């Protein structure tokens, strides 16, 4: 056992197993009938066994695979995306989209001073008037 276990891999397995454990626990608490557990119980059991196999295989590996770079930038954009998704129905589809697209272009390397906000404004307008008009649901907007 000489290999290293990347933190992001441990995080993924931890999250996956925690979710699995929670879903299994909730299913067991709801009912222990065969009909209720027919998929979740065997799948959760196999997930546990597979996780063990994956961990052992990774630790046995002599050369640990290098973790891909750029995790921080990705996480910043992911966090921004999560906030944007929440803000859509709380701030307004128009403003949330405008701010997210503008910031996203700048974070992704857009250098011009005026093109990103102009593009974000035109794009948001097109989405609200085009995409939004096709929604069969009410859509919250702040400005448009």
């Amino acid at each position, binding site marked *: 056992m000489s290999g290293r276990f990347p933190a992001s*891999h441990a*995080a*993924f397995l931890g*999250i996956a197993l925690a*979710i*699995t454990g*929670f*879903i299994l626990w*909730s*299913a067991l608490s*709801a*009912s222990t*009938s*065969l*009909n*209720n557990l*027919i*998929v*979740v119980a065997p*799948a*959760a059991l*196999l*997930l546990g066994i*597979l*996780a063990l*196999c*994956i961990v052992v*295989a990774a630790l046995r590996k002599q050369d640990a695979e290098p*973790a*891909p770079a*750029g995790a921080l*930038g*990705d996480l910043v*954009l*992911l966090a921004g*995306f*999560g906030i*944007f*998704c*929440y803000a*859509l*129905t*709380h701030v307004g*589809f128009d403003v949330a*989209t405008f701010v997210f*697209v503008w*910031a*996203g*272009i700048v974070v*992704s390397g*857009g250098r011009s001073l005026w093109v990103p906000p102009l*593009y974000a404004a035109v*794009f948001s307008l097109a*989405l609200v008037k085009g*995409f939004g008009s*096709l*929604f*069969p*649901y009410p*859509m919250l907007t702040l400005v448009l």
Partner: protein
Amino acid sequence: MLDQFALSQAFGLLFSSFDPWIWVIPGLLIGLVFGSIPGLQISMAMAVFLPVTFGMDFLQAMLFLTAIFTGGAYGGGVTAILMNIPGSSSSIATAFDGYPMARQGKHNEALGLGLAASVVGSFIGYILLLLLIGPMAALVLKIGPMEMVVVVLWGLTLIATLNDSSLAKGLFAGFLGLVLSQIGMSTTGIMRTTVGNPHLLDGIPVVPAMIGIFAASELLRLRGSSYLVTDEAQRDISLRRILAGVAETFRHPVVLLRGSLIGAGIGAIPGVGSSVANLVSYGEARRTSATPEAFGKGAPEGVIAAESANSSSEGGSMTALLALGIPGGAATAVLLAAFSFHNIIGGPSFIRNQTDVVYSIILGNLGQVLLLAVVGLLMLRVLGMVVRVPLAYLVPSVLAMCAWGGYGITGTVAGPLTVAAFALLGWLMRRNAYPVAATVIGLLLGRMMEGELVRTLQISNNQPMTYLLERPIALVLAIAMLAVLVGAPSLKALRARKARRAGH
């Protein structure tokens, strides 16, 4: 098999005036646009434009709505190829090889492959429908939960073949999808967790989850690059190269024909349809290929298998609608609504009394498929422009559309938040070489599997194996599945061992 008199009447209905065809090209364009925007569903397009058909006569309305259906099925494949965003669950397998081809600068060829496979697949699907609508309807009536369990199991076996680095990781990703599909109320009405969110009562919405795990996580990976296609010389939209892709499709006739037959067969099963058909077809193409290792890295056969199957399943799904009056999915449910608006009830009496109308719908669809080839070729030049957009602009724009698409599906904040949660999951999975497609397949088929298994247990009084012996179609399907999954590889291994021994 064919009623000659009704057939000649159908030709008369279709070609005595131009009226039935007026709305076909607009329908194809609407379908292509809706299909290629993540979150805009084909069924949504059909529902939005359903009121437009109220002023049309029945045949005109049918051709318009089915044109949206046909265009949308192909549109979903375009974004799967260009951006790794399957427009719907029926295009999941298209992304497996289409997107790697696009990243290698072969987007023109991949789009050509997809278009030709779609056109041929749809054509075969509708020809089969025309010839076999009577017998197929009788067969569909004999399909019960046991048969569905076998078909869904066949789709699930694809999980084992999807692995970026190890089999254990592929299986882990697939079983994670199965477990996630168990959130919310069970098929028997037992309340499992909703993670405190009442919007998850019916489980995790699959399309927003698919958009998040496929698209959003991939877009994050693209962040560091400048364009989708790195090589500037490869970024052009070339009709010549698209046509080369079209020609390449016909160099794999077995894959094309098998995909089309699988699609038509599975598509006819109400409730299963194209979502499973493209996965089974892709899995079979990979299993029987001489170079299975090329799959997932840009194999043309992968695109052909997936697109031919999802397109031919359209003809299959019309079987239950026309012959039995049962909608197999959301899109055919909208068609059924159009039926009722025009005082037409699908089913055996419709086929018996109005055979000419049934034939004209099918023949009209065959005509539409040919028009799709022309419209598709023209539209691909526009849709393919996406490779010329700098990623600094494309990534946030498409991410925003992904979130909007999530809202478009659910109508609540649960949609965009599902996209975001699955984007994080997809990002973690891709970083650690887990196949995200396996999780989507598990999520998509998990609930279907549970429902059919429970129904099978109830019908068979908890004796599924005894019940299997009483179901000839299920038995044949199960034997075929075992022969393909276990028998063929064992035979291959045996032959290889014999050849090695002979060599020594």
